[in-house]
């Protein structure tokens, strides 16, 4: 605690010091007006930003905007407004600068159209033109533009976790990506799914639910419609200290805002149908603007199979206005958004026969209020307050047939430990249950910035702020309609789930401070951002390690640019990012395990006798810590005019990811299996007294969440962006990455030989320092050839993807013998020389602890080079109506290969095509 609090104190001192210096100097002031190029009308509510300076303002109703305290130097000013092409302008800041800018309505008739992501360091931004051109159905489709992404079909009937800078995906990386809408994180931390069969705590698993739900795996991208998005930023590098509760960077969504004509979108392909309509109104001279949008999506995974479907209805209202407070401009945004989805399955032939169903109803209502005061005072440049509340109702309903394949099973009855008379379950029954989650997230943020010029050419900014989140789940949790008909009785483990509303709210306070320096000397520019973010979880049970624990994450980004026409930028960063455990991880349910003492089953019900012995296991981990990711990044960008070459190397290591560990706990109880010599139970119910009472010991297993998952990511991302080749009217972008991802665990391997020795359970569990790890590597190149013919208002894209290298390999310490073992006392013992000799001998008891290792397990799985070709084209007609068409996998060459396990494999996918229409009404 002392260690973590220390940097905070240091930074607070620094802040005071800098504030004192603030009065020393001012930077330049940049102001201007925005007008429509066609009719000269003022363009209000456009976003005007200064790249690299974290300066962002909104134009007022008269199209006026102003920045103060801009460091001297040459900066890029960017104007984005719904319906207009993005405008960028290099601005030389010295003294007062006044600009008159004219915005052109977005059209393929313009000589330049931005259909790719633009990058600045490791931050990628996808603007509205590109967002429309991609023809996305969800945010997942947009990520293909990022270097290192590979194309894959987007199946909306399944949950797919977000993958970031890695080969494959893992729960912790997906959980650690912070998806934010207008600066407020979309939180899934309050979701909780505790029931044997759903939680990884139990033995059996409901695959229908597991495939469709992503508890503890972050944001479900299917729920995020791209139709309400004006632009989206992806920051996979070191995040600003402003952002927390993440390990894998941020996805920042900026909602559509401002006035615009009615615009409709219709999309249809083999799996999805989508319709959208949106319009922005100007509400009088002082009334601000209101933008409304509604979209509906219907998706199936297979056009021939309509019993597995996903429907999504989203609507969003975004209100913007500018007021004046004490003579200072105050921007106010209010956003109300609603998402309703329904995922329903009543699938294959078998399911028909069983009449089994799965239904997930999801509804999220979010309200956000944001006020930004552009104070432009020496001591306070900007003050921003955000209050957001959202309410989600997520209900998964299941009607499931339970049919024992091995005869009758035990009915869960016990609520306490000990011996009790049991009842057999019927061999076949239907179990109805639902999981009800109703998390309410409240988020309050206060941000301030101070900007001043310390000396000639040295701009300084101090950003600081506070954030408070409150997550409370009001749902009923897992509810089994008839507890005597459990849905997952298979291994006699049960939970007695508490309602989610009985779980206390998770409250987290955070504060940050970030100092920025921008030094310009001729053609040299040095910029630095150093910050720290401190987080403190509250309202946890007092014996939790996390409760009231203050944790600090340092973040640092440095960049140096030399040149003007030819410009070389070198950049480096280090940051630590922290993700708190979710409510599901923090509050697992106890596991009730029924052991059979007497298990006499006959055809005559009156002669059956079941006696069980119940033990209760608490899987909660009070020592649970957050997952942390240490990130290093270095990069170089070379720009010549509009051509750009970027290289980014990164190394990320997270060692405390959440992972379920199987815990072996011994249990000893009395069993009645062998009839006493001469005992005759014919015609009556057998009693304990008819049997030999025998002590029976075994190891019971349950799973406990631990901080043990280790993910190491290495990679080099590259991007070459070339301006249009005039002759071919084609601009080229080549990007890709080499990624190497290691998935490992810091836990030792526990191995239990399931041997019966003389009718008794095997008495030892071996503990092996195995160090197992799976390493995945991939090298890809994605080539985009964007052919743009403004005269015909035509855009044609050829996308060719090469995956040059795609390998995976398992490795471990090849540990044949255990270092420790657990016996029926529950104690762990070191394996000494004597025991080791027994294990390595033919000893009838100990030899089982020696493992057999097959070299084939270590073989490298190497896929051959694969090539994929997608095309898409958009033709624009009068009044901005656009017709688009795409064919994915028009060519897909994935040769067959011999896998590491010596099996011949081939990856095969069908071509996939669709149509889309954008229509602009003159309304």
């Amino acid at each position, binding site marked *: 605690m002392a260690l973590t609090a220390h940097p905070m104190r240091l930074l607070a001192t620094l802040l005071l010091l800098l504030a004192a210096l603030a009065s020393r100097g001012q930077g330049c002031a940049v102001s201007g007006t925005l007008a429509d190029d066609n009719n000269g009308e003022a363009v209000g509510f456009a976003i005007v930003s200064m790249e690299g300076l974290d300066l962002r303002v909104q134009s007022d109703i008269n199209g006026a905007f102003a920045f103060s305290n801009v460091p001297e130097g040459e900066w890029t000013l960017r104007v984005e407004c719904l319906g207009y092409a993005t405008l960028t302008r290099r601005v030389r800041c010295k003294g007062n600068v006044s600009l008159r800018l004219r915005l052109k309505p977005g059209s393929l008739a313009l000589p330049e159209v931005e259909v790719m992501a633009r990058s600045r360091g490791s931050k990628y931004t996808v603007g509205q033109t590109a967002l429309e051109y991609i023809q996305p159905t969800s945010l997942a489709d947009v990520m293909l533009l990022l270097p290192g992404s590979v194309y894959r079909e987007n199946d909306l009937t399944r949950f797919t976790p977000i993958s970031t800078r890695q080969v494959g995906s893992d729960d912790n990386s997906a959980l650690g990506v912070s998806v934010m809408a207008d600066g407020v994180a979309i939180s899934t931390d309050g979701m909780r799914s505790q029931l044997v069969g759903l939680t990884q705590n139990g033995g059996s698993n409901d695959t229908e639910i597991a495939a469709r739900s992503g508890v503890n795996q972050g944001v479900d991208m299917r729920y995020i419609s791209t139709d309400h998005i004006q632009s989206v930023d992806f920051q996979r590098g070191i995040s600003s200290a402003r952002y927390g509760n993440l390990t894998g960077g941020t996805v920042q969504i900026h909602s559509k805002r401002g006035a615009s004509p009615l615009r409709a979108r219709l999309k249809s392909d083999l799996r999805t149908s989508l319709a959208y309509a949106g319009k922005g109104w100007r509400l009088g001279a002082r009334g601000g603007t209101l933008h409304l949008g509604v979209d509906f999506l219907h998706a199936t995974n297979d056009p021939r199979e309509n019993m597995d479907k996903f429907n999504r209805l989203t609507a969003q209202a975004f209100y913007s206005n500018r007021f004046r407070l004490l003579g200072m401009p105050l921007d106010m945004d209010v956003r109300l958004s609603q998402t309703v989805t329904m995922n329903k399955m009543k699938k294959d032939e078998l399911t028909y*026969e*069983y009449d089994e169903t799965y239904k997930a109803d999801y509804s999220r209502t979010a309200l956000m209020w944001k006020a930004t005061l552009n104070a432009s005072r020496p001591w306070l440049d900007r003050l921003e307050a955000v209050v957001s509340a959202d309410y989600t109702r997520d209900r998964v309903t299941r009607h499931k047939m339970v*049919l*024992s*394949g*091995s*005869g*009758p*099973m035990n009915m869960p009855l016990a609520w306490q430990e000990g011996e009790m008379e049991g009842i057999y379950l*019927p*061999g*076949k*029954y239907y179990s109805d249950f639902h999981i009800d989650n109703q998390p309410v997230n409240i988020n309050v943020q206060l941000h301030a910035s101070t900007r001043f010029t310390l000396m000639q050419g040295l701009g300084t900014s101090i950003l600081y702020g506070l954030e408070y989140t409150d997550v409370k789940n009001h749902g009923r949790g897992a509810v089994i309609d008839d507890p005597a008909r459990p849905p997952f009785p*298979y*291994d*006699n483990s049960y939970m007695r789930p508490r309602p989610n509303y009985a779980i206390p709210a998770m409250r987290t306070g955070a504060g940050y401070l970030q100092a920025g320096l921008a030094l310009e000397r001729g053609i040299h520019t040095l910029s630095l951002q150093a910050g720290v973010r401190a987080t403190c979880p509250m309202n946890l049970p007092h014996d939790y390690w996390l409760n009231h624990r203050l944790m600090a994450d340092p973040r640092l980004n440095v960049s140096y640019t030399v040149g003007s026409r030819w410009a070389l930028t070198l950049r480096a960063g280090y940051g630590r990012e922290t993700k708190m455990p979710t409510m599901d991880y923090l509050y697992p349910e106890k596991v009730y395990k029924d*052991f*059979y*003492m007497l*298990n*006499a*089953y*006959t*055809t005559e019900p009156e002669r059956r006798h079941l006696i069980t012995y119940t033990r209760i296991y608490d899987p909660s981990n009070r020592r649970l810590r957050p997952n942390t990711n240490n990130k290093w990044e270095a990069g170089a960008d070379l720009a010549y005019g509009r051509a750009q070459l970027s290289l980014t190397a990164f190394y990320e290591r997270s060692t405390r990811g959440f992972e379920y560990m199987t815990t072996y706990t011994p249990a000893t109880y009395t069993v009645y*299996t062998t*009839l006493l010599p001469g005992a005759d*139970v*014919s015609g009556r119910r*057998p009693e304990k007294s*008819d049997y030999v009472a025998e002590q029976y010991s075994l190891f019971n297993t349950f799973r406990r969440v631990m901080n043990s998952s280790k993910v190491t990511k290495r990679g080099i991302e590259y991007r070459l962006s070339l301006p249009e080749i005039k*002759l*071919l009217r*084609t601009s080229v972008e080549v990007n890709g990455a080499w990624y190497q991802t290691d998935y490992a665990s810091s836990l030792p391997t526990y191995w239990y*030989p*399931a*041997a*019966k020795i*003389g*009718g008794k*359970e095997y008495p030892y569990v071996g503990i092996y320092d195995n160090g197992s790890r799976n390493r995945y590597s991939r090298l890809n190149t994605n080539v985009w050839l964007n052919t743009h013919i403004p005269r015909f208002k035509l855009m044609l894209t050829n996308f060719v993807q090469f995956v040059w290298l795609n390998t995976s*390999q398992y490795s471990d310490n*090849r540990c*044949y013998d255990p270092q420790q073992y657990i016996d029926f006392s529950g104690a762990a013992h070191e394996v000494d020389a004597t025991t080791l000799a027994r294990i390595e001998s*033919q000893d009838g008891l100990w*030899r*089982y602890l*020696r*493992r*057999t*290792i097959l*070299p*084939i397990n*270590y*073989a*490298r799985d190497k896929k051959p080079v694969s*090539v994929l*070709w997608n095309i898409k084209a958009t033709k624009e007609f009068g009044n901005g109506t656009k017709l688009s068409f795409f064919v994915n996998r028009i*060519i897909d*060459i994935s*040769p067959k290969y011999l896998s590491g396990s010596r099996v011949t494999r081939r990856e095969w996918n069908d071509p996939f095509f669709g149509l889309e229409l954008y229509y602009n009404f003159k309304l």
Partner: protein
Amino acid sequence: MQRFISRLALAMASLTIVFASCSSDDDIDNSVTIQFNAAPTVSGALDIATLQGATVDFTDVRSQDVKRFPLDAEGKAQVTINRGTYHISIDKTVQNAQGEDVVISLRMENVSVSEATPVIQGYVNSLPAKALGQDFIFSEIFFNGERNSGRMMHPDQYIVIFNPTERTLYADGVSIAVTQHLSWQNKQLWYDSYYPERVPVGGFITIPGTGQEHPVAPGERLVIAFTAIDHSAVEGYDHAVDLTGADFEVYFGPESKDVDNPDVPNVLITENADPYSYGFFLQPRGYVSPLMFRLADGTQTTIDAYVAANTSRSKTHVAAKDDTPEADIDVTILSVPTSTVIDAVQTSDVPQDVKTRVIPEVLDRGKFLVNGCHRQELCVRKVIEVGSRTFYQDTNNSTEDMVMQQGQNSFPKGWRDK
């Protein structure tokens, strides 16, 4: 236009690659001539000249086409066939000096034929054409399972053994094992160190008793059920049968998803739980094959001594390759000497067939295949009626001796009296 041409060229180039990879190789002459040599498994046990005139059959594994080649007096044959993988077999019945029929047979599965194997050596066995009926035989094996309420399961697996002799046999100590090697697998590293002299087993069950507790009269049967309950009475079990009349039950213990019928005594279970051993179970596709042998009695002491005496460790050193490390593969194996096996049936299913013979040819030179799993296909021995008594055919060739019956038999309480 230039762009169009270059794109077209790319598309054409890609298509050429696609088509090239699909080109047919039917026209290429695939045939190869090799020599096949037959020799006795036990040197001097058989005059190889008796094979003259017999044929060696090569069955193409893919097409099931059979090509026959005559053997000369030295047991050799010139074989000209297409390259490929074949099952090789020889069957000839001759009379021995005592005038009894003896089958000379050979079975080799999945033999690769190419220039790399100019000579294929095969070892033939001479076997009595009729089993002598000295001890119990399997009369029914139900491993296939069924569908109940549409779901695949096999709760009512059972085995019936039969006394084919003219005297009372005692079941005490009679043990039924299943092979450790799966019939669909390629030969495991340890295969040749054990087969054909010993059969590695995953586990076995033993009928309890000190020696004379469970007499079985001549022509009488003994039923061993995995779970001796009335499965047909369980809700949803619409294709299961009543096994309450079983003589013995396999009860896997308190935590094994199994119930215990107190009216039916339990067999003793012995399992080898070393890695790559699957214990005692019947695989619904017949990938493990059952075999029967006899212990002196059915007591735990005798079993423990047997296990200790028949457990050995197979050690294989594997050299490092490009991407795999060197390793010592140690597998502990429990095996039954082939000479002590009293009956065995090589089982598998039609899709996989018998890739590797897991029951030595001297015990079963045939095979019994089910069409797939959970189809209620019962393996039952051909009935031979001798007067009023029922006997079963046993020629150590399950292709001939075993037939498939659709639907398993029911053994309700008191079935013997019905």
